[in-house]
C-alpha cells in the first residue's frame, strides 16, 4: 500500500528526513514512532502531496506521490497533527462542506459524530483543541477511505474519545483499510498496531512486527517478597524495599519452575512496553 525507499527531504540546510525506508502492507495498522523533530510529519506531508521530496521514492498503491497528487488522494483519509478548519463556520456546515466535496451522504458522518461525542452546536473557532481533533477525525474517516494517514491522532483527546477512536481504527481495519499513524501515545500504538517503525534523526532505525518485537525482547519480572534467585537470562536486577525486579531473556518455563519453589506474595511477568522500547532506543538522545 505504501512503499518508501531511501526518502530524503531538507528544508534549506535543516534536515527533514535523511533516509526513510519502510513498507506498509494492505490491511495493516502501522505505527510510526519518533521524538519531536525526528521527521514523522515531513514523511506524512510528502505522502500527502504537500511537500516535494529531494530524492528517493514514495509510492501509494504503486503510484509515485508528488505535489498536488490529488488522483492518489481519492481514497485516502488524512488527519494532520493540528486540525484547523474555517473558524467562521459552524461544525455541521464544515462537515457538510467536506461531504459535498467528496460527494458522499451524511449517514456515516452522523455515526462518527455520535461515537466521538463531537459538539456540533458551536462554531469551529469555539471548539477546544480536543474537539477540533474530533472534527478532524470525522473529516478523515467520513468517506471510509481504503488508506488512512493520521499524524498524532490521539493527542488532545480525552480517554473516552481515545477509546472510541481506537475502536474505530480496528473497525476500519476489519473493513479492509490500511492505517498509517504517527503517535507519541505509545500505549495506543501498542493496542492497535501490527507493525511499528522507529525514526531517529530522519532515519528509520527499526521496522518490525509488534509480535516479533515482543518475542525478541525480554520479559519484565517483579517478585514480592525479595528472594535470592539466579537463573540464566536474568539482567538488570533491581531490589526495592519489598520487591525484586529483573529483565528475563531466557526460557519462561524454566523461570516458572524456579519461581514455584518459593512462597511468593506477588508475581508479575509482563511483556516490555513500547514506551520502554522507545526509551531504550532514544535514551542517548534524552540524556543528551
Amino acid at each position, binding site marked *: 500500500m505504501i512503499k518508501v525507499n531511501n526518502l530524503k527531504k531538507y528544508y534549506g540546510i535543516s534536515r527533514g528526513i535523511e533516509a526513510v525506508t519502510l513498507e506498509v502492507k494492505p490491511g495493516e495498522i502501522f505505527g510510526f514512532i519518533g521524538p519531536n523533530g525526528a521527521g514523522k510529519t515531513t514523511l506524512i*506531508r510528502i505522502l*500527502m*502531496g*504537500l*511537500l*516535494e521530496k529531494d530524492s528517493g521514492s514514495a509510492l501509494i498503491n504503486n503510484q509515485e506521490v508528488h*505535489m*498536488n497528487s*490529488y488522483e492518489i*488522494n*481519492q*481514497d*485516502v483519509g*488524512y488527519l*494532520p497533527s*493540528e*486540525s*484547523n*478548519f*474555517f*473558524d*467562521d463556520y459552524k461544525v455541521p456546515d464544515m462537515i457538510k*462542506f*467536506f461531504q*459535498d*466535496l*467528496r*460527494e458522499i451522504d451524511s449517514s456515516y458522518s452522523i455515526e462518527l459524530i455520535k461515537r466521538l461525542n463531537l459538539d456540533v452546536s458551536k462554531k469551529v473557532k469555539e471548539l477546544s483543541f480536543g474537539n477540533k481533533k474530533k472534527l*478532524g477525525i470525522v*473529516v478523515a474517516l467520513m468517506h471510509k477511505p481504503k488508506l488512512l494517514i493520521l499524524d498524532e491522532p490521539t493527542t488532545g483527546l480525552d480517554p473516552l474519545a481515545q477509546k472510541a477512536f481506537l475502536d474505530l481504527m480496528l473497525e476500519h481495519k476489519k473493513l479492509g483499510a490500511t492505517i498509517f499513524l504517527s503517535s507519541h501515545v505509545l500505549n495506543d500504538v501498542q493496542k492497535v498496531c501490527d507493525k511499528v517503525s522507529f525514526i531517529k534523526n530522519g532515519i528509520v532505525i527499526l521496522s518490525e512486527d509488534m509480535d516479533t518485537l515482543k518475542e525478541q525482547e525480554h520479559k519484565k519480572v517483579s517478585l514480592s517478597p525479595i528472594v535470592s534467585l539466579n537463573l540464566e537470562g536474568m539482567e538488570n536486577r533491581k531490589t526495592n524495599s519489598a520487591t525484586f525486579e529483573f529483565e528475563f531473556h531466557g526460557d519462561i518455563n524454566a523461570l516458572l519452575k524456579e519461581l514455584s519453589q518459593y512462597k511468593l506474595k506477588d508475581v508479575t511477568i509482563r511483556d516490555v512496553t513500547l514506551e520502554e522500547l522507545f526509551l531504550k532506543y532514544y535514551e542517548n538522545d534524552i540524556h543528551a
Partner: protein
Amino acid sequence: MLNTLLKMEFKRSYKSFLIWSSIMVATLIIFTVIYPLYADIFEILPPQLEVIMDAWGGKPDNILEYFSIETASMYFMVGPIYASMLGFTLVSTFEREKSAEVLYTTRVDKKYFYISKIIVLFVLLTLFSLINFLASYITMLFFDTNTEVVILALYFLMMNITFIVIGIMSFTIALLTKPGTNPLISMTLPIIFIIISYISKLSDNTIITNLKYLTPLAFSDATTIIMEKSGVEWLNLTIFTAISVGLLIFNYYKFQKRVSI
C-alpha cells in the same frame, strides 16, 4: 465540486465585500450630495486656485465633472486597496488559518481551487463596481437628471478592469511570498500606483507625465474619461490586460506547485 468550492469562497468573502462596499458607497454618496456646496465655492474661487484646479482637470461645470474631480478621487484610492486585499487573501487565508493542509489533500485537484478563487475575484470586484456605479448614478440624478450615464458607466467599467488587474497582481504577490505573510503587505502595490499616478499629474514635464503609464490607473483616469472626454488610454489598457492574462497563466502553475503549509 467547483460549485461547492465557489459557494465556500463566496460565503467566506461576502462579509468583507459588504463592509468595503458599504464604506465605498457611503463615501461616494456623501461626496456627491455636497455638490451644491462645492458648486458655490467654485463660483468664488480665486484665479490662483483655478490654475491649480486645471492640473486636476479644471473647474467642473456640472455634477458629473465634479464627480470626476472630487468623488472619483476617493474611489481611485479605496477601490484598488480593496482589490489588492481581496486578491492577496484569496491565497493567504487558507495558509494563515492552516486549513490548507486538509483542503489541499482531499481528492480535489488544486486547479479547481484556483479557478474558484479567480471567479470570486472577478465576480466580487465586478459587483463592487456595479454597486458603486448604481449608487453614484442614482445620487447624481437627484441633482441633475441629464447626467450622461454612458460616460459614467465607461469610467466604472475601466475602474473595474483596473481593480481586476490589481487583484490579479496581488494574487501573484501572495504566491511569491511565504505562507503566513500579513495581507497588509499587498496594500503597498496600489499605494505605489496611486503615488505614481499623483506624481504624474504634478508637472507638465513629459517624462513625469508619462509615469502614469507605469500604472493600471492611467486607462481609468476619471478626468481623462469624464472631464476631458478623451476616451480611454487604449495602449495602457492593452498592455495591462496582456500582463494580467500572463499573470493568470503564471499563477495557475505557481498555485499548483505552491507549498501552502
